[in-house]
């Protein structure tokens, strides 16, 4: 195994999705190793690795695990496999081709934190991956890796795969917990954070698939050794999903700190010949957009944050110069307005009105002043919602309005000229009635 490919090394190998194939590669050796060391030392090892959450927020996993109260009580581990951030598809490939690495990571994490009940919340659309995971869990149960007194360690675990039913908001950790409790997936007010009061009011650790799947590697390598990969603030490797206008889209594993140009042009071949990068989303559709001049930024948590964007889920979406900024913004707002759960006002109204205001630009009814209103709506959404769904629209749309203002103004001008000569069709409500 090379140091740069910890999760994706020869992942296409036939049979790797079975227990036999995984064990042939040394699978479940980290589990045996973990059972031999004290529980607190495992959490320390994870902390020492500097592993940051791979789902979007980038919170240190070791720190999150240490927030869980100690002692005998019903605690839960929930693996967030909802993966519905537009542009993100890394967990899908990992779960489909190597499900046991996730299961092993979950067993180690539950052992380290004294949890006896774990769930994998997978989005309902991933039917193939859910079937594969279900089969893998059954295999692991039959082999004695899940159940009572695993491998004589005294640790017991019940692992349940839970299929969602299509809702972006259930990728938000508290929305996910409500959904897992059998309710509508509305986010909860924080605090209390899930680590204190989460699933069934018990302390709950919620982690992304990739984060948990990295745990066996950390145990095998040692936390300090893992921390040597990548940069100081962003250790290790990251699975990234590149999509949009690139010639070789797909999932790649990179060392954090690699240049973004190297990823988009080197690995993915850049846009088609003759086209240039107009903008790119560095971390899923919720991240503020970056421009061509930002391509030399190192791809890690801190550099992207300093540049005014974020690494998010590691999903790069490249938009080339054949697309209009308005079209991109409209796609985003339509999605977020459809997916807003409606629980809090800034998000429910803000996403919907932003969508309508952009439609007015297209139909020629907007004035340049509308761009100022658009921008001010976005700043009023950010930080004022129950969860980050509202922010997830406001950040990219706000950045598009700021960075492509000239283009949008020209669009307003051109559209109103069109509208004055051709009768305008009535605006259609693009958001299906009855959608949440």
């Amino acid at each position, binding site marked *: 195994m090379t140091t*740069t*490919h910890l999760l*994706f*090394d*020869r*992942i*296409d*190998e036939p049979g790797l999705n079975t227990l036999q194939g995984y064990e042939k590669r040394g699978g479940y050796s980290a589990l045996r190793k973990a059972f031999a060391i004290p529980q607190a030392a495992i959490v320390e090892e994870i902390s020492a690795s500097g592993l940051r959450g791979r789902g979007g927020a980038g919170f240190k996993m070791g720190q999150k695990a240490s927030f869980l109260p100690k002692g005998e009580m019903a605690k839960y581990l929930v693996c967030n496999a909802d993966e*519905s951030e*537009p*542009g*993100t*598809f890394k967990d*899908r*490939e990992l779960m*489909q081709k190597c499900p046991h690495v996730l299961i092993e990571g979950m067993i180690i994490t539950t052992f380290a934190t004294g949890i006896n*009940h774990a769930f994998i919340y997978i*989005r*309902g*659309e991933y039917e*193939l991956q859910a079937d594969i995971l279900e089969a893998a869990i059954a295999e692991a149960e039959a082999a004695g890796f899940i159940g009572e007194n695993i491998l004589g360690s005294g640790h017991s675990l019940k692992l*349940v795969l*839970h*299929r*969602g*039913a*299509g*809702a*972006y908001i259930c990728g938000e950790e508290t929305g996910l917990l409500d*959904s*897992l*409790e059998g*309710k*509508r*997936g509305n986010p909860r007010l924080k605090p209390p954070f899930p680590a204190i009061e989460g699933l069934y009011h018990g302390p709950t650790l919620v982690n992304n698939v990739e984060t948990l799947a990295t745990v066996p590697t950390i145990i095998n390598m040692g936390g300090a050794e893992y921390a040597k990969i990548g940069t100081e603030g962003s250790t290790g490797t990251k699975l990234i*999903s590149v*999509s*949009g*206008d690139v*010639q*070789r*889209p*797909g*999932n*790649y*594993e990179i060392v954090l700190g690699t240049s973004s140009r190297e990823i988009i042009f080197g690995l993915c071949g850049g846009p088609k010949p003759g086209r240039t990068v107009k903008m790119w989303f560095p971390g899923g559709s919720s991240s503020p957009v970056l421009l061509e001049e930002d391509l030399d930024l190192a791809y890690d948590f801190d550099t992207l944050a300093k540049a005014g964007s974020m690494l998010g889920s590691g*999903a790069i*979406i490249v938009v080339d110069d054949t697309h209009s900024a308005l079209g991109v913004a409209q*796609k985003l707002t339509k999605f977020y307005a*459809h997916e807003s759960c409606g629980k809090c006002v800034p998000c429910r109204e803000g996403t919907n009105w932003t969508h309508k205001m952009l439609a007015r630009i297209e*139909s020629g*009814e907007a*004035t340049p002043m509308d761009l100022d209103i658009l921008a001010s709506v976005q700043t009023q959404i950010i930080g004022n919602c129950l969860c980050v769904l509202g922010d997830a629209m406001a950040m990219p749309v706000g950045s598009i309005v700021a960075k492509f203002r000239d283009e949008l103004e020209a669009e307003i001008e051109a559209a*109103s000229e069109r509208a*004055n000569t051709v009768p*305008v069709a*009535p*605006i259609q409500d693009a958001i299906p009635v*009855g*959608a949440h």
Partner: protein
Amino acid sequence: MSYFDKRPPVKRYEHGSRVPGWDEAVDLTKPPATVPDPALTPVPAELREKIETAMALYPDSKSASIPALHLAQKHHGWCSPEAIEQVACVMRLTPAYLTSVASFYDMFALTPKPKHDVYVCTNISCSLLGADEFYEQMCASAHGHEDIGVRGFECLGACEIGPMASVNGEYVGPLNLFDAQLIVEDLEAGRPVLEHKQLRNRAVADPQGRVADWTGIDPVGQEG
């Protein structure tokens, strides 16, 4: 004359800013729905057993409401009032509660739906590659086929094969406009859909993730 006098009048939505039906009064002559009486609600034995198995997996059986609704939808074809009544009866919940849950999630149909689901992703990555055109073509191709339901869907998590669609849960892509007709033909003939474009057979993009003896689809060979 100022700019504002010249502008065309602002178009308003026909139903104002509200969703139609918001002001329909509740029928107070009907009794409020309660947990259905098991004696009066026949539940197919197979469905009951599956729901009860799902309920046993969780510390709180209410957690099984989404899995149970999936099961009922599979059994009845859609989340009909009868299906919801049966789930409510087994889970000891009110039908109103389950309807509120079912209406939240995109995959549950509260109105009768066609047998085959074609979800076409129309989100950002796919639409950059022409998903909107494909969606229109797909609607046109499926026109007149009562058992095929085409739906524009949010990101399905397979942007590398954009434009893509999920046909009865099987991910296929990258699609071109001709594939719309092929999908309809495959569904009508009961064949697996677009076997040469199924995501399950696709190799990973990362060169180090690949193996030499890969027998499925190799994205590099295809696009290089």
